[in-house]
C-alpha cells in the first residue's frame, strides 16, 4: 500500500524506463581502475562546489580549498571589484604552494591585497596577476605577461561557489545545473550564515556513502532510535516511503513528507528534544524567511519535510521545511576511501535558546551520521568480497540506481572520446 501518489506506471522506477528494474552492479565502487577513469571523466570535468559566497564577505576576502583526491588546492578570492575568482594555489615560479598557514596541507582563509609566495617572494594580486618578481634581472627571457596564477573556471549559483577543473568548459554552470536545481535561485540560503562544519575520513568508496544518503529505506532498521524513545516507536519494521522522486539530467531529488516533530505527542519525544524544541529535523521554531521559497517542494506535497537535492557528482543540498539547510560533499581519495564534508547552516541564533536548538540539531546530525559512517566500512568490505555480482534495488532506492547509471555513462562517454579509443 502506498501513502503518496506515484506516477501512472505504478512505480517511480518504471516511470523512467531507461533505468530498468534489474539488479545493479557496484563494481564501480570496488575497482581501482574505475576510480582512475572516474576522476578524469567526472571530477576533472564536472562543476564542483567548493564553498559559499558568505565565506568571502568583503572585497579582498579569500579562502583556500583542498580538493581531496584531485591533487588540487584552489584559491577562491573576491577581487577589489567584488568579483569572485578561482586559481590553482601554485606559484608560477617554482611550483610552491602559494597560500597556506600552519602546514601546506591545511586550508586557510582571510583578507589580503596580494598573495606572497613564502619561498622566493613572488607576489600576485587578487586577479592572479604577478606583481613582483624578486631579482628579475637574474632571469632569462622572463615574459612580460604570462607570469600570473593559473585560473580555474568558477561561477556562482544561489551563493554556492563552483569550480570546474577542465581546461575548456563544455557547459556553463547554469546549463549544467538544469531546471530542477536551477529553480533554487532566490531561495534565502544567504540568510543562513551560522555554520557548523564536520569532516570525516571514511573507508568506503564515495558513492557508497552518497547511496546511504539518497534513500530513506535504511532509516527504520539502522536509525531505530531516531524514531522515538519508546519500544513502540522504535519499530525497525516501520515502512518508510519517499513522497516524491525526481530526476533531471545527472541530478536527483527525493522529497519527504510526514508529521513534523513539533506536532508529536510528548511521550514520543526524547526529553532533550522537548527541552530544546529541536532534533533530527532541526529546530522546531522556523525563522521567518518570507512568503515564497523558490525551488523547494517542487511537487507541492502536503506536510513537506525535506528536499534532498543530489547535485551531480558530489554535492547534496538538504533543505528543511523549518528553514535551515545542510550540504554534504564527498571527495574520493581512492577506490575505497573518501573525505566527507558536512555543513549545517542556520539563520544566526539571537539568544541562548536558539543557540541550543541549533546545537542539538548539530549533535543529532553527528550521532546518527556516525551510524551511517560506521556501516560504510562493512558495506565496502562486503562489496569487495565479490560474493555477488549484482544487487537488488527497490523503488525507494531509485536514486541509487540513477546515480550509478549516470556515473557509468559519464565514464563511458569520456573513454569513447579518448584518442585511440576503438569505439571512437
Amino acid at each position, binding site marked *: 500500500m502506498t501513502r503518496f501518489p506515484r506516477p501512472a506506471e505504478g512505480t517511480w522506477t518504471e516511470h523512467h524506463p531507461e533505468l530498468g528494474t534489474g539488479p545493479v552492479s557496484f563494481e564501480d565502487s570496488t575497482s581501482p581502475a574505475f576510480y582512475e577513469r572516474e576522476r578524469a571523466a567526472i571530477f576533472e570535468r564536472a562543476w564542483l562546489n567548493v564553498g559559499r559566497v558568505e565565506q568571502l564577505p568583503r572585497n579582498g576576502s579569500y579562502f583556500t580549498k583542498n580538493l581531496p583526491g584531485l591533487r588540487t588546492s584552489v584559491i577562491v578570492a573576491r577581487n577589489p571589484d567584488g568579483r569572485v575568482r578561482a586559481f590553482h594555489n601554485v606559484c608560477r615560479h617554482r611550483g610552491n604552494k602559494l597560500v597556506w598557514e600552519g602546514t601546506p596541507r591545511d586550508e586557510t582563509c582571510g583578507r589580503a591585497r596580494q598573495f606572497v609566495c613564502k619561498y622566493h617572494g613572488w607576489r600576485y594580486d587578487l586577479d592572479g596577476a604577478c606583481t613582483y618578481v624578486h631579482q628579475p634581472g637574474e632571469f632569462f627571457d622572463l615574459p612580460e605577461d604570462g607570469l600570473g596564477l593559473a585560473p580555474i573556471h568558477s561561477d556562482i549559483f544561489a551563493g554556492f561557489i563552483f569550480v570546474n577543473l577542465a581546461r575548456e568548459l563544455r557547459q556553463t554552470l547554469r546549463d549544467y545545473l538544469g531546471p530542477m536545481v536551477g529553480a533554487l535561485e532566490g531561495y534565502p540560503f544567504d540568510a543562513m550564515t551560522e555554520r557548523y562544519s564536520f569532516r570525516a575520513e571514511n573507508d568506503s568508496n564515495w558513492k557508497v556513502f552518497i547511496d546511504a544518503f539518497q534513500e530513506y529505506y535504511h532509516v527504520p532498521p539502522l536509525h531505530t532510535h531516531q524514531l522515538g524513545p519508546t519500544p513502540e516507536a522504535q519499530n525497525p519494521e516501520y515502512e518508510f516511503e519517499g513522497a516524491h522522486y525526481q530526476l533531471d539530467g545527472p541530478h536527483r531529488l527525493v522529497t519527504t513528507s510526514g508529521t513534523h516533530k513539533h506536532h508529536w505527542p510528548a511521550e514520543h519525544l526524547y526529553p532533550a528534544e522537548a527541552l530544546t524544541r529541536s532534533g533530527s529535523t532541526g529546530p522546531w521554531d522556523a525563522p521567518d524567511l518570507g512568503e515564497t521559497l523558490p525551488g523547494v517542494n517542487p511537487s507541492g506535497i502536503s506536510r513537506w519535510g525535506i528536499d534532498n537535492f543530489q547535485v551531480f557528482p558530489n554535492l547534496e543540498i538538504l533543505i528543511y521545511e523549518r528553514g535551515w539547510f545542510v550540504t554534504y560533499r564527498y571527495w574520493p581519495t581512492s577506490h575505497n576511501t573518501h573525505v566527507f564534508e558536512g555543513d549545517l547552516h542556520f539563520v544566526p541564533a539571537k539568544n541562548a535558546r536558539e543557540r541550543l536548538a541549533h546545537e542539538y540539531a548539530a549533535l543529532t546530525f553527528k550521532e546518527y551520521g*556516525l*551510524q551511517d559512517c560506521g556501516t560504510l566500512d562493512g558495506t565496502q568490505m562486503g562489496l569487495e568480497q565479490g560474493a555477488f555480482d549484482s544487487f537488488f534495488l527497490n523503488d525507494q532506492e531509485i536514486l541509487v540506481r540513477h546515480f550509478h547509471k549516470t556515473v557509468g555513462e559519464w565514464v563511458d562517454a569520456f573513454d569513447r572520446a579518448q584518442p585511440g579509443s576503438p569505439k571512437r
Partner: protein
Amino acid sequence: MSERMLPTQFGDLEPFAATWCLATEPERWAQRLRSSMEELQTFYDAFFPRAEAAIAYCDGFPLDDLPADAERLLQLLHSLLMVSYAVEVWKQPEVIHCGSARIDRILEPRP
C-alpha cells in the same frame, strides 16, 4: 575549585563545572567518551531539571555579550545536550553501531 564558576543561583551545579564547562564540541565529545555511564547519569540527573531555568537565565543577556559566569552556564548546557544522547538514547557513552567511524566538528559558532 575555590573560585565560583557559575551564577550564584546555580551554585548547586558547581561540582560539575570544572569537568563540563567546555567551550568546544571536540572537548565535550571527548569528555563524554571518557566518562562512565554513572558519571554521565549523575550530571544529567542533577542538571536536567534545572536546564529550563538555566536557559532562561542565559537569555537575560545578549548572546554576544554574556558575562563570564553565564557563558560557562551556557557551556554547561551544551554539555548537558552532549550527555543527553548517552543517557536518553544510547544508554552508553558511544553511539550504537558506529564502528570505528569518527566525524570531527571543525567549525562551530561561538559562544
